[in-house]
């Protein structure tokens, strides 16, 4: 491709997407489709069908065959009506965003959208995705909401915007492809990739001296909880397993007041992203061992605590940290 054609191609492409952008419904939590933002073209089977119809028409003329004409025109009518059906199938849909769970960088983010029809009738075989034919087809029953999953690779930490997606359908005949570009206001948090060394006392350069050199959180038995993958095998209550109970993990708490501070500044030998990954890993480790931990970053400080909410807060801080 010469430079000239390439420039032209890019120019046309840019203009095209600007045009699409102008027509697109506004970015919003609830997206309603309309005639303005919905596009329709025949699929390749639609083209094939058109070709067959053309052949049938020519044969009818050649043989002056009246029933042939009737059949050709009946199929033409079905084709055109099918186009309207395909169109309705998409344009009746209203999309709202649902809460999407956070993921770690490198995983696949799953966005949840809620689909419902606004004309009191069901819509069938709808799909949405980032690319032309992406996504699994799903049906939306009348008066009910259907959850639609969108899989997007989460490459970098931070807030991942769903961005522009393509919602499409070819129902009922598969001869027309109707689609719309929409931008539902959906985002989720991508935690940093968890990596680095396991948290251990050996790596303690704490200057507050508040915590002991013991293995973290192994001093006081606090109870049992259901086994999660990743739990240390040393903590499994094997006696209970032998007795035929489900697999349980022993929980320990460290001595009251033993607080671990995870500090950005202690990791000066690593570059910033690696530091975040390391901190992420520690947060996970400490959460799993039910320690009380706090996080210190240059721009914030989270007091030591425990639990899911605390973990989420710490990881979110790490995800959104800007250095």
């Amino acid at each position, binding site marked *: 491709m010469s430079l000239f054609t390439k420039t032209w191609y890019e120019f046309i492409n840019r203009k095209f997407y600007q045009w699409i952008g102008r027509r697109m419904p506004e970015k919003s939590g609830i997206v309603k489709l309309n005639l303005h933002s919905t596009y329709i073209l025949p699929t390749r*089977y639609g083209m*094939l*069908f058109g070709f*067959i119809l053309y*052949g*049938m028409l*020519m*044969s*009818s*003329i*050649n*043989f*002056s*065959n*009246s*029933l*042939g*004409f*009737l*059949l*050709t*025109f*009946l*199929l*033409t*009518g*079905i084709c*055109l*009506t*099918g186009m*309207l*059906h395909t*169109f*309705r199938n998409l*344009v*009746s849909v209203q999309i709202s965003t649902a809460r999407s769970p956070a993921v770690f960088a490198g995983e696949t983010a799953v966005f949840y959208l809620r689909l419902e029809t*606004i*004309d*009191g*009738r*069901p819509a*069938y*075989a709808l799909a949405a995705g*980032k*690319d*032309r*034919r*992406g996504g*699994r*087809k*799903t*049906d939306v029953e*009348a*008066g*009910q909401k259907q959850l639609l999953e969108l899989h997007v690779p989460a490459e970098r930490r931070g807030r991942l915007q769903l961005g522009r997606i393509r919602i499409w359908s*070819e*129902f*009922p*005949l*598969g001869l027309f492809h109707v689609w719309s570009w929409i931008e539902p206001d959906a985002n989720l948090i991508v935690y940093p990739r968890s990596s680095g060394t396991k948290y251990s006392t050996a790596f303690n350069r704490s200057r507050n001296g508040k915590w002991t050199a013991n293995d973290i959180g192994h001093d006081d038995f606090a109870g049992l909880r259901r086994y999660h993958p990743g739990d240390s095998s040393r903590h499994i209550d094997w006696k209970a397993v032998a007795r035929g109970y489900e697999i349980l993990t022993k929980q320990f708490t460290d001595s009251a007041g033993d607080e671990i501070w995870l500090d950005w500044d202690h990791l000066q030998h690593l570059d910033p992203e690696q530091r975040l990954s390391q901190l992420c890993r520690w947060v996970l480790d400490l959460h799993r061992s039910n320690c009380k931990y706090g996080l210190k970053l240059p721009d914030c400080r989270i007091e030591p605590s425990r639990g899911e909410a605390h973990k989420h807060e710490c990881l979110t801080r790490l995800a959104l940290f800007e250095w």
Partner: protein
Amino acid sequence: MQALPARDAAADAPSRHSLYLLTLSLCLSLSPHIAHIPAWLLLVAGAAIFYMLLSLYRNLARPKTWLLWLLVSICVTGVGMHYGKIFGRDSGVSLLVAMLSLKLLETRRYRDGMVMAGLIYFSVMTHFLYDQTIPLLFFMLLAVTVNTLALITLNETSARIAMRRKIRIAGSLLLNALPVMLLLFVLFPRIPGPIWGLPQDAYTARTGLSDSMSPNDISNVVLSNDPAFRVVFSGSRPRPEQLYWRTLILGNFDGRTWRVDDKPLLAEPEQLETKGQALNYTVTVEPHQRRWLFALDMPANERVLMNGERLLLTSERLLRATKPVINLTQYSVVSYPQYRLGSELNRYQRQRALQIPPNSNPRALELAKSWRAKTRRPEELIAYALDFFHRDFTYTLQPPVLGRHAVDDFLFESKRGFCEHFAGSFVFLMRAAGVPARVVTGYQGGEFNPLADYLLVRQSDAHAWAEVWIDNRGWVRVDPTTAVSPARIELGLEGAIPLSERAGYFYRRDYPLFYNLGLLWDAIDNRWNLWVLGYGPEMQFGFLSKLGMSHPDPYTMTLAMLLGITVLLIVSGQFILKRRTRADDLLQKIYLRLCSRLAKMGYPRAAHEGPLGFAARIEAENAVLGKMLSPTFHLYARLRYGSHNLRQAGSHLLRRKIRSLNRHLEKSETPG
């Protein structure tokens, strides 16, 4: 744009359910071809479909692609050997059946399914090369619906949609498509075909006549009740004995078979003098793949038009089309029942009209010579012959087989036969006696349909008679069959043959119910022929002019067609895109109306109040009113926030309740 992701093979495979439907659709759309394809191919196609069903049911592996290609090439070779060619109607249809049924086994992916569905739609069309009757129209609608159903099933999600709903979608597609079909049928500019020529066997010959006549020819036809042509008379109707539809002249006899003269006379048309009243009529001919056309004795007008083309009138005044009649066609003729045909016979013509092969039928020859010894007047010779037939001959459709001297065998041995035996031997006797004569075949009679006022001539009305040359009178028609069986001419074939030889129940006068149903059916068939099958360029022009289009040229028609389709799509779009009123909205509307009424009465609803809270507050302020309102408010709350299914039905209930409530409120207001 990002590149297409590789699609999951499993997700791409059509569901088993859709394959079942596709198989069903294929069987349905190919079923009428059972009569048209060779038996071995039927076996192959049947086996392929059976294996497909079995493999779906039992989850068996389907044959490999190379095996299918091998089978296809065997089938192609087989069809080529069976028909001696590949390109033709029958061979083409056979190939289509073979390929579709084998392709079915190869339907592995969504793509294959879609292609298959498209081809099935196409295959429906091939039936119309054989037949275009009304039942086929219904067959077409059924086959298209089932195939549309299969297409919808191919495109649904893996979570199957209930069959009932899919049928409703297919039905909606079909119903909305019907007006489009009618509009296009009427307005699509018709071009006279053919564009690229027809396969030689494009339409089956179904005529009752052939250009040769040997013993047993016509009797095969006589049993067919298919219509040959229909006639509408404007003005007076002819009498039954005038209904001779002269079609072919067979002048050449080889001792056994009568044939059309292969060397046509390059002569002027035989002169015609007409007298008496003319008969004006329009003939609608069923396609019969021959050029010959039908006119009553004796067509007079010089210019007869059919599809805008001039018809030919042969030297013997027979009507001929310029091309074989492959479609239903119509033409108007003027005939004179009283006429004189031919002024004089030249030597060559006389010689041909007297030709009999030497050394054939010696006994008949002798009989004729004995007559000629008595008289030389043609009228008397004719009378001798008719008298001879009248004595002890029997009219039957099942004559015995005749030997080498067919005329002798018939005249002196079997004495049983039908029109062609009589006509053939009569002409032979006349020629042997020195009177120029020729055999004429065509149709005789016909039946007036009292329901629609037209004359129907069936294949079973095929007939043969004679024309004898009499100086000063020209060619005179003589029907020797009348001498044996006058009923054949007066009542038609039905009256002439014994009950045991008759065909079918319909068209038989001794079963009045069936007979009348048959007449009704034929009247419908006639309309179908005229309005649908005969709708070609001329009829379109005429019809559109009548509708008020001043210049129905292709451009205007195309414009009108596009406009019409746009209007139709907008109208059906209104139906398809219409919002169904939601039960929730309806309930709320009713509720809010009640609330505003209460507000006027001095009980405004606070914005934060739900129905139950509001009802409780009113009850606290006004116990009587509260008691009255409470059930209604409770019903509303139950409907609005309860199960979804209740809402649609509940809104009626709520409305009724509120109506009676309103009446109570009015009553309670008036005294206060």
